[in-house]
């Protein structure tokens, strides 16, 4: 858009990004992840083609979103952020009022043609809102600004906790926290915050946590307590990963997943399917690609010209990372079982579309280095 005039003059030397506003390496990384995701999903769903096509459709929508969002100048993103933030908060309220119940929690909003989780969108909108908040304020933020910023975090997190969806609430909080971290929040503040979380966590446990959430945490702490019940999931996914070995059992040949020993193989536990069928090699490729995508996103953010784009881009990258870390850690038995998809691999339309849409913002940041619209 803004560089349109350059294209005409420097056709021969113009790069891919200048022509399309798309960051090539990042796109390749995402395409690779999505392809791998469809491959694993085909196996995890036990060759359910309809399901894979649905997922591919959402990926298509996601990539379309990337292309479209990439063309939007970050300026407009910044301008519209408060409106979007208010809108998504409104949707979260709406979910509590009229939302669909799935697995004991109200998370879904049925828009007739599509079922949609507003909390997913919040993972992107919240960092953008935070970044907007810091545009006019010198960095690093002071205590007063920190508290104000935390207010912004508190509204959607409270709404999501009401659903209740602890996993997403934590993730949304983290996406906000990442903005604070990238904004240069003082280390003493960071450590005090960590300290107070450690103090508040038991209180939260005691008074606010639902029993199923407590069970998950307890199961994580001691899976052998209940090997046939809640510990079953973790036990079976560890068996899947461990039995996969170095090279894996081969595509469509994972016995744990194909014979339905692995629960939630399509969604939260898909990492175990990949591990079982492609082994440690597959895990290395997956984690390597994630690392590449995250580092590339951080690099793009660091190259950005202003606070808004930097903080937004960096927070999106780190939120993406948390998805990866929490999911892989949970499935391999290092973290408690919380409902969190493996980004771009797990089945789930909202998640895929939102994540890819988020990368559209990074594309936009990469393509439009100057904040001013000239």
């Amino acid at each position, binding site marked *: 858009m803004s560089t349109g005039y350059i294209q005409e003059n420097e056709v021969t030397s113009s790069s891919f990004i200048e022509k399309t506003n798309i960051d090539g390496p990042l796109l390749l990384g995402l395409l690779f992840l999505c392809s791998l995701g469809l491959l694993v999903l085909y196996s995890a769903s036990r060759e359910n083609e309809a399901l894979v096509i649905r997922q591919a459709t959402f990926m298509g929508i996601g990539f379309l979103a990337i292309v479209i969002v990439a063309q939007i100048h970050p300026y407009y993103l910044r301008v519209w952020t408060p409106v979007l933030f208010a809108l998504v908060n409104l949707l979260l309220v709406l979910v509590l009022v009229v939302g669909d119940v799935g697995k004991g929690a109200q998370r879904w909003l049925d828009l007739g043609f599509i079922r949609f989780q507003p909390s997913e969108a919040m993972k992107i909108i919240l960092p953008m809102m935070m970044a907007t908040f810091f545009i006019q304020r010198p960095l690093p933020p002071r205590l007063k600004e920190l508290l104000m910023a935390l207010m912004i975090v508190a509204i959607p997190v409270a709404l999501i906790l009401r659903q209740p969806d602890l996993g997403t609430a934590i993730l949304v909080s983290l996406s906000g926290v990442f903005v604070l971290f990238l904004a240069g929040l003082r280390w003493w503040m960071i450590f005090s915050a960590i300290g107070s979380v450690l103090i508040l966590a038991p209180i939260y446990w005691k008074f606010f946590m639902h029993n199923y959430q407590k069970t998950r945490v307890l199961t994580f702490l001691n899976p052998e307590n209940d090997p046939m019940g809640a510990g079953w999931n973790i036990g079976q996914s560890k068996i899947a990963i461990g039995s996969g070995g170095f090279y894996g059992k081969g595509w469509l040949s994972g016995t744990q997943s194909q014979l339905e*020993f692995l629960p939630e193989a399509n969604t939260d536990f898909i990492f175990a399917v990949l591990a079982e069928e492609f082994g440690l090699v597959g895990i290395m490729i997956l984690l390597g690609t994630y*690392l590449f995508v995250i580092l590339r996103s951080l690099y793009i953010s660091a190259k950005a010209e202003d606070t808004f784009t930097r903080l937004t881009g960096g927070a999106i990258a780190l939120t993406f990372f948390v998805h990866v870390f929490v999911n892989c850690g949970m499935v391999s038995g290092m973290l408690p079982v919380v409902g969190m998809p493996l980004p771009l691999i797990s089945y789930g339309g909202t998640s895929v579309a939102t994540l890819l849409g988020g990368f559209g913002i990074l594309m936009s940041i990469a393509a439009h280095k100057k904040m001013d619209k000239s």
Partner: protein
Amino acid sequence: MAGNSLNPGRKTNKVVNNDQLYKQSRVKDKVLELRLFSVRAVVSGLLVFGALLVILGNAAFLTVNKHDYYTTRSENNRIKREPIAPVRGNIYDRHGRELAINLPSHRLEVVPEKVKDKEALYEYLSSAVGLTREGFENINKQKRHRKAYRGVPIKFRLSDAEIARISVELHRFPELQIQSDLTRFYPQRDKMAHVIGYVGRVDSRDLERLDANNYASTTHVGKIGIEKYYEDILHGQVGFRHIEVNAQGREIGEIDRTEPIPGRNIYLQVDIALQEVAEAALGSFKGAAVVMNPKTGAVLSMVSNPSFDPNLFVNGISHKDFNALNTSTAKPLFNRILNGQYPPGSTIKPMMGLVGLETKTFSKFQKIYCPGYFSLKGHKHRFRDWKRVGHGKADLHKAIVESCDVYFYELANKLGIDLMFAELSYYGFGRKTGIDLHSEKSGLLPSSAWKMRRFGKQWYDGETVIAGIGQGYMLATPLQIAVATAVIANNGKKPIPRLLYGIENAGDGKMAVKQIQYDIPVPIRNMDNWKLIRKGMEDVVATRKGTAHKIRKSLQMSVAGKTGTSQVFSLRQDQNYDANSIEARLHDHALFVAYAPIKDPDIVVAVIVENGGSGGAVAAPIAKTIINAYHSLYKNKVDEPFKKAKVESVSVESIASHSTTIDG
């Protein structure tokens, strides 16, 4: 990091005075903020890298270090070992006639997981196969002990009509299935039921003693008779198949299969044709008959009358049927041959006489005057002879032929109970014969020591006197009486009776033959004594004075025998035995033992008719019928059974020990 004090460069786009500046003391510094962000971005990148490395490290630990452990657990998850029951071996008689076989049959099963409408199913099953509410509820109870998606049997041995009727309804009830299987069948029905025995459903008591591996999918096990005794050989060895199952336990496919080794066929010494004659000869009498080869111990026939149909027991006998059998005063379930303990009565006289001669207590010329009773010195009590007027002067020969009681009263008194005990033990009284059937009773051969042990009382001479004619404490099973008679016929050699002829090899049809086994022989001091006893027995039948002479006319073989009439009811001194005046169940037992032919005997027959009365009149004709049937069946020579079988001289014992060491 970047404190306010380090923030001197102000890039202002608005004018601020010093006060404001002081208050705010900070404005945006693009260079510094970029540096700040870059540092944080690098820190983030390092943290991300480190965190992913932790994930990878843990994954490497699981996939490499603990790979074997998780592989095992994964295989245990998906592969289940499913046992396959072997086909049970058949039982044949000596000519290969079927005594116990497996019939193809059908059973109705329900798969509880597939049941949709419980009530509709119950309604249908109660009308179609008469399932009770209790039985229906039991299906759900069985669910717990059973693997998922396995059928629970509802009814065994469906009739053709039932199969036809149920088949058309199967589409309505997908949870029902008709499975083909094999059912144990006893084609001879109640013939020889006590010998063959029967199989029944494996119950918890069976499970305690059986090899759980080998019986993992066996539904029926031998409960009594040959079916129980040769269970190891008949059962065979379990096979296995490895199947892949999903998380619900539903079978996905078979991976491999080890076929079971079928149980071996067993051939018995018995002749079902002879058995048929023997059973018919006993007719409606309660009693027992044993036909045995005295040289080999081979049991040709064993009758315990009345009998029962073992087929009733195979799939669980109904309460009604069981009560009918169990409460009948004729006790059809009672195996009289092994468990019926009777006073042997006069059938013991040949052995007693022989003991007298061999111990030189009496010589063969010794004559006893029989006035019709015997009294101990200094006692008035009269031990009566069955013949009130007495036999006059009687030597041993006469005492046997005419069955003179007084002779044996005297003899017993002279011998004393403990010498009698020692000598008669050789003939097998008071000990199990060792036949290849379980739960044999040992009878009772009394001694003074036994009485002290049992009752804490001393032995009386009067008790010795009646023991001399096989009365009093003395008890013997029909089989023991047959064995003792075989000893007389066989010059002291005492065979161990056996039912098994051989075991067929599954592959080549060769037969492993059971070796003849002998017990400790009776010591022979003077063969002439034996000949004398046998002559006496010969004349029981052959001479006019003999107690069994009435059977002589129609005999087709030369027969030697001895009658016996044993008292169930003790008469008072002044009473006469009058069959009409006392209850039937207190009537005397009629006994007869015989061997034939006299020269080189091939068979020994022992017959006992409960409450039958006189041995000569009731039991001897039955023995005659059996001997004649034997004669016509074998034309006076013992045939080698199993012409079809290539007989191999492998002992059965080697097979039996082999079959018990096979692992599961």
